[in-house]
């Protein structure tokens, strides 16, 4: 009895601060964001209301749907490019590198850039791709181009490259973890039974590593989906992403309720992706492990 009371007391003590914090700074703000998305903009301020005008505007005005689709496209391309680069890298680390020291160094080589300022990693691509940049100087000096070209910077390709650069560690880490977890005797058995390396990969390793691929895809997609710094630095006039539009509503456009509605749309999309990803990873586990 005394023990039970004491443990309840201590659990109450341990819990109170995180609970209060989570309630005050996560639950309440998200709730307010939700409520705000129904408010009305009445110059120069915003008034409480319950109307769907903001959401209606998001549907009726085609620019919002266009930006949303563009954001999905770019986030999808970033995830895909990251996957194509990260998977062979992680596979090499797990299956081809025999010395643990080398494996650790190569793994850290991917994680390390995460510690270097995100803004500067995005910014450096501006210095590389610009008209006066390293890439142009290189191409001109080798004679591939006769004069510097402006096609590299301020477009969607530049954004995809920059975002891939910034977020690729989030793809390598879960794939590496998934590949490392696959018992080695499964692939050995497949080889012993006469499967080629490629067959073994397609029918054993790849399906078993899918939870890692899904986790990596989810992370890179969600992170690029919400980014507004790369578009600002290397995106051109057709490079605005949804987060830029939200930021504008809270800045120059000064329409917080509309911005809240957009943010809520973003929140719902991200939550849907996370839920789907959890389900898919769950299915994968049930089937293979």
């Amino acid at each position: 009895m005394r023990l039970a009371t004491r443990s309840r007391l201590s659990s109450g003590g341990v819990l109170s601060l995180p609970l209060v914090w989570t309630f005050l700074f996560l639950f309440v703000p998200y709730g307010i964001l939700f409520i705000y998305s129904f408010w009305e903009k009445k110059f120069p301020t915003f008034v409480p209301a319950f109307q769907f005008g903001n959401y209606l505007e998001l549907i009726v005005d085609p620019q919002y749907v266009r930006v949303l689709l563009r954001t999905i496209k770019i986030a999808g391309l970033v995830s895909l490019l990251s996957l194509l680069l990260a998977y062979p890298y992680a596979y090499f680390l797990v299956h081809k590198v025999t010395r643990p020291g080398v494996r650790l160094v190569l793994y850290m080589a991917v994680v390390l850039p995460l510690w270097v300022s995100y803004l500067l990693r995005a910014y450096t691509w501006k210095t590389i791709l610009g008209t006066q940049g390293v890439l142009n100087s290189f191409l001109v000096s080798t004679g591939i181009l006769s004069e510097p070209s402006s096609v590299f910077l301020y477009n969607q390709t530049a954004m995809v490259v920059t975002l891939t650069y910034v977020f690729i560690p989030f793809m390598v880490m879960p794939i590496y973890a998934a590949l490392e977890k696959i018992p080695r005797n499964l692939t050995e058995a497949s080889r012993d039974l006469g499967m080629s390396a490629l067959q073994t990969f397609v029918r054993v390793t790849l399906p078993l590593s899918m939870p890692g691929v899904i986790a990596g895809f989810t992370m890179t997609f969600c992170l690029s989906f919400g980014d507004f710094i790369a578009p600002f630095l290397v995106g051109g006039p057709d490079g605005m992403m949804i987060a830029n539009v939200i930021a504008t509503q809270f800045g120059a456009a000064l329409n917080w309720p509309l911005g809240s509605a957009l943010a809520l749309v973003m929140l719902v999309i991200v939550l849907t992706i996370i839920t789907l990803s959890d389900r898919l990873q769950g299915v994968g586990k049930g089937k293979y492990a």
Partner: protein
Amino acid sequence: MTMRVATDAMESRIGRAAAHRRRGAAARRAETWASNAFFYGMVGLVLAFLYIPIAVLIAFSFNSSRSLSWPMTGVSLEWYERLIANEDLLEALWNSLYVAAFATALTLVIGIPAALALDRFEFPGKSLFRKLVLLPIALPGIITGISMLIMFRMIGFNLSLETVILGHATALVSVVVTQVFARLQRLPRSYEEASADLGASGLQTFFLVTLPNIRTAIIGAALLSFTLSFDEIPVTFFLTGRDNTLPMYIWSTLRRGLTPEINAVGALIVVFSIVMITLAVVLTRDKSGRRG
């Protein structure tokens, strides 16, 4: 019966595989060569992709001219000298250190009990609590930023570095929770039970048994949290008042165009990051092997 059939089938398969292996030795060598070439190529590509930009960033910080074209015109320390003389930048740096220090302290104070609660206790609303605490990991920072901005405005809070600290702590608690929670899951419960059986109070058990065992996870989480806060933009962007943090200062400079001074800042941040990582690796290495 079925057993024998299965064994026969397996033997014939293994036999075929062996034959296949003998016949295709040359083909197999070619295959191995091609696959090695592919993998070395990919690894080289990824490493070049990751490190050439960082090398470019550092190289240009020593450039003697303002232009950022290759090859560089000469080597100089001019941009570093300007950096030291730039008072706005130094103030921003100081602000960033202030914000990161307090935000990290808060994430630990909230995150460690949260991880303990998630690992050890059952309570109503636990799954909602877990989802909310971990949400900022995948949720774009801009949503945390604007939702807190609206709240602060509603209750009439003025924006300042302190609101930035609250924002960072909220966004980064998830980092501490995931790291500490992962370590707690690996920690045998029997240690704490033994401690309680020997008469230690809950607090004594926590400080004398649990804490020393999760120490390295906490240090790692704190260093990561500090680095992320030091570098944070999306939340800071909406929650800062007149004062700038370092990334916000760089951001506003970039609006006005490129400057090699930023490269110098960048090079210093790279050095700072390497120090932090080394610290993280050294401090989080589990020394006591006897714990198994």
